[in-house]
């Protein structure tokens, strides 16, 4: 009998279609910048062309006189943002320092920082007028090259980032096999299709409507309310559709506050859409990170020591931190483990979370190092991982709520044809290309937060579910509809409506950290169960499990029946460690003369509990794999450190994969539920879809060529000679 049957899990079905698919492909889905408000004006920034210093003079006369211009704001005339005065922070979450405050003084902290904001009656006129703003600066010496200041890196404050030590990781006396390697992940920039955009419309002196590209309407609402000292309810934030974000819309950025400020001042709605190059300078990026891994093992491949150190960049004015080294503490059973995490400030805009934040960077180093160790031990990399499989969480001794990593290894290995891999690098050639196989694993915490969902059975038989969560493209609406349809089994999917992306709806957390299916899904589940029970009470004893809801409402003469439920994880979760796992397998071919790498095959396996929405889950895995391939082979934000400016701040020169780079990607799911996390047994998937992928590619390139590239991206020039 198959294990699936033993666990009483239905086999993975196709699942429902994306509920907003038609709206998206027909263009009917409205993104933030697409809303129109009568009297709209348009904001465009003039930006600093120096990296550090002060504005000596700023001449806005020509811009003010340009056709269609309503106002030009600089630090000299911009009205004060009330929340800036008291230090109340409109944007989260630095662990130290504070976010940039625009137009408050004449200091320039990084290149591309806005120094003036033009408001005009059209985007084109605002753009032209912004080009007429002339600033003179007093320059100060700057440093944007993180690799030059790694020695200045310091441990961030707070217990989460303190050095971690288990056993005696630094005792290398009697370690038979040792490996030490350094890895670099460069700046990666999110570059979603949709540019950062906000429309700010003051409908009264103390009331505001905002259409925003955000991953969390409630957090944007709170940020703006704090900045302008308003009751949160006075700030209405809408984000019905988000065209990809990958983390760069997790925060409310300074330019959004500036747009709100400008709208108040000109007394008209203001639309601000960043240009593509401004995205590089404004809404964060994956920070440049240098890492060192030291591993010790016995000759038969048991890990004895593991030390992982990371040093990453942050900005000069606020600390950005992420969990780069954390997975090393629990991924493998190793008695002696140490992790060190430090950050170093440079004169750039602040980094932020980018898909698989921290862990994606850390997994590149750890999973390459494990591969390097396997090579050194002349052992299959999967075998090495299995030998060091952590049956319980070595960091805290807790059992895992569920963990099917070994099964995931096996599923992926079978599918890619791992048995065809030769352990000796550079031993397979086909049609003049070198062939190689590689794998890498990923892990990310699986939790459940608090969310509130209102479930209403309407008189027309439509089940309406409402909560403020956004869908950043991952298919949240679809997954929630699926969850509801599994509780309300009698109701067709077409009669279930999930309303989201509106701050006036019951609160859900920000879309991020692979938490939403679990958190909001759990609340949707609980709300649906509660509504069903309410119906049962209404009907009384002996009622059917699938009543005719329209008839019941009619019979009882009530227009609708609703419940609002707030729910979160149960306390039992604290006794377990809960993670989602991924294992990525790739087959690459590398041209031995030109160094060109092509991905032939990808198999990504997710152990993320019960798969709620198979179609959108598959899309998630494919998207993450593509992101990981981009990270591995092409993505890098390049700064000319003499000027502190990007030299590839556009989509022609900042490369992300195109269709021609991507082969068929096989998405496999272990699909075993973890009911400790939530009633659906589902765990997050967004991050693990990317985490570990870049290592899989690097390991495959090594297997193909014998060349170990430890600094991403693996461009053809690095494979020559």
């Amino acid at each position, binding site marked *: 009998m198959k294990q699936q049957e033993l666990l009483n899990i239905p086999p993975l079905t196709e699942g429902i279609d994306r509920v907003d698919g038609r709206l998206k492909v027909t263009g009917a889905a409205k993104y933030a910048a697409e809303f129109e408000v009568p009297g709209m004006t348009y904001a465009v920034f003039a930006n600093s062309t120096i990296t550090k210093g002060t504005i000596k003079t700023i001449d806005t006369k020509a811009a003010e006189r340009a056709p269609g211009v309503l106002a030009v704001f600089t630090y000299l005339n911009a009205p004060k943002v009330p929340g800036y005065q008291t230090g109340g922070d409109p944007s989260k979450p630095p662990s130290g320092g504070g976010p940039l405050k625009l137009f408050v003084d004449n200091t320039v902290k990084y290149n591309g920082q806005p120094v003036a904001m033009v408001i005009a009656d059209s985007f084109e006129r605002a*753009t032209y007028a912004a080009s007429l703003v002339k600033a003179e600066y007093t320059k100060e010496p700057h440093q944007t090259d993180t690799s030059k200041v790694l020695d200045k890196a310091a441990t961030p404050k707070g217990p989460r980032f303190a050095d971690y030590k288990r056993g005696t990781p630094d005792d290398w006396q009697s370690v038979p096999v040792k490996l030490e390697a350094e890895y670099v992940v460069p700046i990666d920039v999110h570059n979603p299709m949709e540019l950062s955009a906000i429309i700010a419309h003051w409908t009264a002196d103390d009331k505001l409507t905002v259409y925003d590209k955000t991953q969390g309407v409630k957090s944007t609402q709170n940020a703006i309310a704090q900045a302008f000292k308003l009751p949160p309810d006075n700030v209405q934030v809408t984000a019905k559709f988000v065209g990809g974000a990958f983390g760069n819309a997790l925060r409310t950025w300074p330019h959004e506050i500036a747009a709100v400020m400008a709208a108040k001042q000109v007394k008209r709605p203001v639309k601000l859409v960043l240009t593509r190059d401004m995205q590089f300078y404004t809404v964060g990026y994956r920070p440049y990170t240098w890492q060192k891994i030291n591993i010790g093992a016995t000759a038969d491949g048991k890990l004895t020591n593991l030390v992982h150190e990371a040093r990453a960049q942050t900005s000069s004015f606020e600390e950005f931190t992420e969990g780069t080294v954390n997975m090393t503490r629990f991924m493998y059973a190793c008695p002696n483990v140490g992790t060190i995490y430090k950050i170093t400030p440079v004169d750039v805009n602040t980094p932020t979370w980018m898909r698989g934040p921290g862990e994606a960077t850390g997994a590149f180093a750890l999973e390459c190092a494990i591969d390097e160790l396997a090579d050194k031990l002349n052992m299959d990399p999967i075998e090495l991982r299995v030998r060091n499989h952590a049956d319980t969480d070595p960091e805290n001794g807790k059992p895992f709520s569920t963990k099917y990593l070994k099964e995931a290894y096996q599923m992926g290995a079978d599918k890619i044809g791992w048995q065809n891999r030769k352990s000796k690098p550079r031993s397979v050639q086909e049609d003049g290309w070198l062939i190689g196989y590689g794998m890498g694993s990923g892990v990310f915490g699986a939790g459940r937060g608090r969310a509130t969902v209102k479930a209403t059975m309407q008189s027309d038989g439509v089940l309406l579910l409402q909560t403020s969560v956004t869908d950043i493209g991952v298919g949240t609406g679809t997954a929630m509809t699926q969850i509801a349809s599994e509780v309300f089994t009698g109701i067709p999917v077409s009669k279930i409506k999930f309303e989201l992306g509106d701050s006036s709806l019951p609160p859900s957390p920000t879309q991020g950290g692979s938490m939403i299916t679990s958190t909001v899904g759990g609340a949707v589940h609980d709300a649906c169960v509660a509504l069903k029970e309410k119906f049962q009470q209404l009907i009384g004893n002996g009622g059917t499990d699938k009543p005719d809801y329209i008839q019941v409402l009619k019979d009882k003469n009530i227009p609708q029946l609703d419940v609002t439920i707030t729910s979160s994880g149960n306390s039992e979760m604290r006794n377990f460690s809960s993670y989602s796992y991924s294992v990525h397998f790739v087959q690459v071919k590398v041209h031995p003369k030109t160094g060109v790498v092509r991905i032939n095959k990808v198999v990504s396996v997710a152990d993320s509990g019960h798969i709620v929405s198979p179609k959108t889950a598959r899309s998630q895995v494919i998207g993450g794999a593509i992101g990981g391939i981009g990270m591995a082979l092409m993505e890098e934000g390049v700064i000319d450190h003499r000027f502190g400016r990007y030299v590839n701040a556009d989509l022609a020169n900042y490369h992300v994969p195109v269709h021609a*780079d991507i082969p068929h990607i096989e998405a496999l799911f272990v699909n075993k539920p973890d009911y400790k996390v939530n009633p659906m047994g589902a765990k997050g998937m967004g991050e693990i879809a990317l985490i570990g992928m870049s290592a899989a590619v690097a390991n495959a390139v090594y297997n193909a060529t014998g060349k170990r590239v430890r600094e991403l991206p693996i461009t053809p020039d690095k494979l020559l000679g």
Partner: protein
Amino acid sequence: MKQFQYVRPANQQGVLAAIAQPGTKIIAGGSNLVDLMKHGVMAPDKLVDINKLPLRNISGISNGLHIGALALNSQVAEDQQVKTKFPLLSQALTAGASAQLRNMATVGGNMMQRTRCPYFYDTAMPCNKRAPGTGCGAKEGFNRMHAIFGFSDKCIAVHPSDMCIALAALDATVLIQGRKGTRHLKFTDFHRLPGTTPELDNNLAKDELITGVEIPNNNFAQHSYYLKVRDRASYAFALISVAAALDIQNGIIKDARLAMGGVAHKPWRLTTAEQLLKGKPATVATFEQAAQTAMQGAKAFKDNAFKLQMAPASITEALTHAAGLV
């Protein structure tokens, strides 16, 4: 962008009169010019749209093929005569840009496209090509994509086109119309090296119009190959590209054409290597020898030293493909 005027003359005479005025600029597909205007790199007062001119035809002529300046890149790439007689050109065109861009870009516009050097594009950085006298940002800066041949102290940018590399290899001729008459220019003489005037990309005068290109018949159709080595599989500029064309009879190279892209301010024709190939057997050893010859005089900068290795490897690879040895 700066506000500008726009005219669309009905005939060639009208175009020639319009472009004789200062501050004017021809627009055809606009796939590069509009970008440059958005970036503030080019700021014409008036755009002269030439799309009404009857210059879209591809037609056989007595000694070869005539391609109108307004023929679309996608149209030329798919043209049956081009595919049969000059497959190298078709291959080069499809290696360039994206399908969407090829549907807009014209042959004349492709020849006029400007370097993608990032310092040229960013008005906050120095660039002698954009703003003569401000210095070359790339020379001491990020120069991974830059020239290894024919550069000057003033400019180390590379020419971005794929189509032009093939046309240079195929001995094409450029047809140019001025107000005083028509002139013909060898394709290899159309683009310039930067020298002391990097602001000039080519030898077309301000008041002249490209009306077409002509490619003479040749015996290379059986043995030609366009290799483009790049950081991703599509929509990326060449790290190195090679247009290779061979006339092989009984295993002996009777004639050869070679040109390289991504290495110089203009399509880089490799005439010494071509000479070396003539009369030699079509073997990998011969090709390697030719590749080494082609690299004489190459010099790299901080970030592009890899081209010294990638270029000869690519020449060998392209010739090997052209000869059918792969």
